[in-house]
């Protein structure tokens, strides 16, 4: 079953064609990776899916519903959550609060209930804390719940971003270079975590540069170069693909004399 489908999607910034007629289908419950050199348009794809800006052409649909012109917070309610390439946490808030913000779209009590501190609000707040702590435990951050997000170690910040995204109770998770800046052992932990998340039924859509991670866990890989899809297939196929190797490693220039 296809969860997310991008059909003929293009994005133009002024004269620059960042994404060119892209077709991608993400199957439910699977891990799909989108790879390609820097500037290939990967993050642009994520931005279009999550409604940061609309595609110039084409349609994006999720479980049959068109997402094209929805606002980001609406899209998230449909069950698509994401993380960011450069960590964007709420730095002055605690770890727990960051996750609690993620639960915003799944909770209801408004300003009046908060002002009056109604039983509903109290109950909900308790529930938020419990669920947030669960999420943190799942991601191994429970011990840090009272620390300020800015005080976390780098790897933990990355994980906290995932926790915040998971707290929105998504069915699909878009991870934008989650392993960037991680050392091999942290990356290995991250791999386990992603698999664990997948096993809870989440669909994972991954943008990543770390090939050990991509090739190790993806069920399907899509390769982008200059906004074009140049290859698609299982990791093994991709690794043998001449086009991919060329895009990644580049061709040699005449060697230095």
């Amino acid at each position, binding site marked *: 079953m296809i969860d997310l489908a991008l059909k003929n999607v293009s994005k133009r910034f002024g004269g620059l064609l960042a994404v060119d007629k892209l077709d991608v289908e993400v199957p439910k419950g699977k891990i799909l990776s989108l790879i390609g050199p820097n500037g290939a348009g990967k993050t642009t794809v994520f931005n279009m899916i*999550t409604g940061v800006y609309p595609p110039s052409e084409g349609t994006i649909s999720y479980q049959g519903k068109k997402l094209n012109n929805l606002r980001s917070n609406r899209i998230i309610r449909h069950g698509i959550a994401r993380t960011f390439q450069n960590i964007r946490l709420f730095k*002055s*808030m605690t770890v727990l609060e960051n996750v609690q913000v993620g639960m*915003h779209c799944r909770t209801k009590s408004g300003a009046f209930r908060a002002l009056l501190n109604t039983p509903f609000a109290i109950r909900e707040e308790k529930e938020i804390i419990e669920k947030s702590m669960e999420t943190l435990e799942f991601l191994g951050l429970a011990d840090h719940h009272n620390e300020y997000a800015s005080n976390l170690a780098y790897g933990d910040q990355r994980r906290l971003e995932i926790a915040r995204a998971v707290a929105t109770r998504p069915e699909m998770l878009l991870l934008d270079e989650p392993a960037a800046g991680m050392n091999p052992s942290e990356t290995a932990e991250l791999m386990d975590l992603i698999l664990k998340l997948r096993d809870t039924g989440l669909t994972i859509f991954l943008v990543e540069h770390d090939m050990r991670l991509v090739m190790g866990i993806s069920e399907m890989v899509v390769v982008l170069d200059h906004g074009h899809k140049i290859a698609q297939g299982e990791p093994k196929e991709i690794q043998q693909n001449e086009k991919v190797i060329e895009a990644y490693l580049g061709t040699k220039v005449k060697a230095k004399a």
Partner: protein
Amino acid sequence: MKQGSEMGNGEFKKFIIYSLFLGVLILPMVGFPGTHFEAKRAFIVWGVFVGVLALGMLNQVVRQSSIYQKTLGGPQSFNRRVTKQFQKIPVRHWTLILLAAVAVYPLLANNYMVDVGITCLIYIVLGLGLNIVVGLAGLLDLGYIAFYAVGAYTYSLLNLHFGMSFWLCLPIGILLGAILGCVIGYPTLRMRGDYLAIVTMGFGEIIRLVLNNWDSLTKGPNGLLGMAKPSIMYPAFSNSGLEWATYSLKSLHALYYFILLIAVLTVIGVRRLDQSRIGRAWVAIREDEVAAELSGVPTTWLKLLAYAMGAAFASVAGAFFAAKLSYTNPNFFIFMESCIVLCIVVLGGAGSIPGVILAGVLLIAVPEVFRELQDYRMFAFGLAMAVMMVLRPEGLIPATRRKLGLSDIETDTIGELEESYQAVDSRT
């Protein structure tokens, strides 16, 4: 680190240069109140400024000296130790002590002091309201006083024309303020910080000018006069048995306790909002709007809500103000008032409730103490404001997010140090 003597030498050079600069700036401006140079006056003022400069720099040199660093400064400095001691007392106790003090205050104070207290409390309510907009949601608002005006005029007009009681007018005023808050908030949603400043300032001025120009409704610059004071009904026994008696909150003491109640409720309300799901979403917007939106926070709606909530509190304060004076006039709601409220919020520490309370008292009550100094008061006020901001840009009591449980986290001094290292603009 430089050697002490070398540093002293450098400081001395700096001192001479600064003094000369001060001379260039002060001598012509102060020396020529008319057409001829009044040397005595000019040099005295220059002398005073140079003196203050010398003291300031001496203080700095002493603080940087190795002896001071070893004894009084450093991580175990006197200030820090004192702060630590204070922090040991739980917030709950502080609150109780403070409440007891403000409750007893009017019994010990004379009318004037009670009146100053009332004004302080009004501004604290305003500051707390603006704190929602500026401190929590991070939206700059220079026209906040307009909502204060809305509250004041709503009560005045409804009371004068329809004889409606304070209690009935209050919710109407809150509603009107909130609606107006949304109206003002709406066009500013797409704007960034500094544009917000001029637009909100413009809205503030528009409201004031409308009140000033709409003669048929507001009596324009003449103002509205003779509103009733709020009154409360209480059961009392009389000849004909149990009856409802009316107690008008006329005396300053009654008004003081009334505004105190409003202020306490405001503190509770703002605190609850701050710690609720809504407050968290506001802070998230302040920290990173895009990330908040992409974490499922409806930023548009929440920003409007921030404006509306802030406006609602100002409206309450406004209604009280009009009722207290029994008079209102568009001139009460000038731009400078918005600035003062903003000062309270930022000086106290944006987002920090105790900060706002402290700054409210400092900014309203302390100038009253120096009322004798008249002209010099505002002069010093301006200077103090700039100096305070330079010394404590985070405010007097910087805001911190609430933590659950009892885990005590030492602030990482190394982290702070390193942050100061990357003094370069982080816009890369």
